[in-house]
């Protein structure tokens, strides 16, 4: 399953998503979700290591590019977003 989070870490949406993410699931952070780049200690970075991504265009729109580079957080572009939805049968958006 792919989880799309559109709200910042700590939001109700983020907490509800964190209850639901399974060990095979991937997480994509878009819109306000990219603010996770400001929180390198957010549990999500450890819990979903190697299966969590930031949407690149929302990262640069938010001016978070340097933060993302500094922590080597993985990003995907819109095509990468589409690929993630191809690879997961189910997609749930948390907003």
């Amino acid at each position, binding site marked *: 399953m792919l989880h*799309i989070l*559109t709200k910042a870490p700590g939001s109700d949406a983020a907490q509800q998503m964190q209850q639901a993410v399974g060990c095979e699931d991937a997480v994509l952070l*878009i*819109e306000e979700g990219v603010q996770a780049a400001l929180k390198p200690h957010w549990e999500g970075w450890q819990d979903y290591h190697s299966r969590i991504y930031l949407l690149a*265009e929302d990262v640069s729109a938010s001016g978070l590019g340097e933060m993302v580079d500094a922590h080597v957080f993985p990003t995907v572009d*819109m*095509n990468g*977003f*589409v690929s993630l*939805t*191809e690879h997961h049968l189910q*997609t*749930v*958006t948390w*907003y």
Partner: protein
Amino acid sequence: MEYGLLVMGAPYTSQAPHSALRFAQAVIAQGHRLAGVFFYHEGVHNASSLMTPPQDELNLRDAWVELHHLHNVALDVCIAAALRRGLLSEAEAQRHGKTSFNLEAPFELTGLGQLLTLQKRCDRLITFA
């Protein structure tokens, strides 16, 4: 693959329709088929033909219409959610005794059953809200 989108955010209120539109373009660019977009909740405002943003801002309604014309994407709007929020086709306006209407083809007012049909028919249904 065949994709469907569910859009529940209003233009200029939520980022959701912008994300949805960009995702739609990427889906099509990668050779997938986008069968339809279903507008529900506040998303019904995407269909307003009276939408008049400043000239230097994207007109979302026109962008959806272009997507329909170029790629034959169905644009379905939940009738119950739309009527509550003042989005009416000419036929609905007549039925309810209103003098004006703001929803026209290629947007179509339809029942919620259409969303469930889209979800069953498509390989993927992605929500933007």
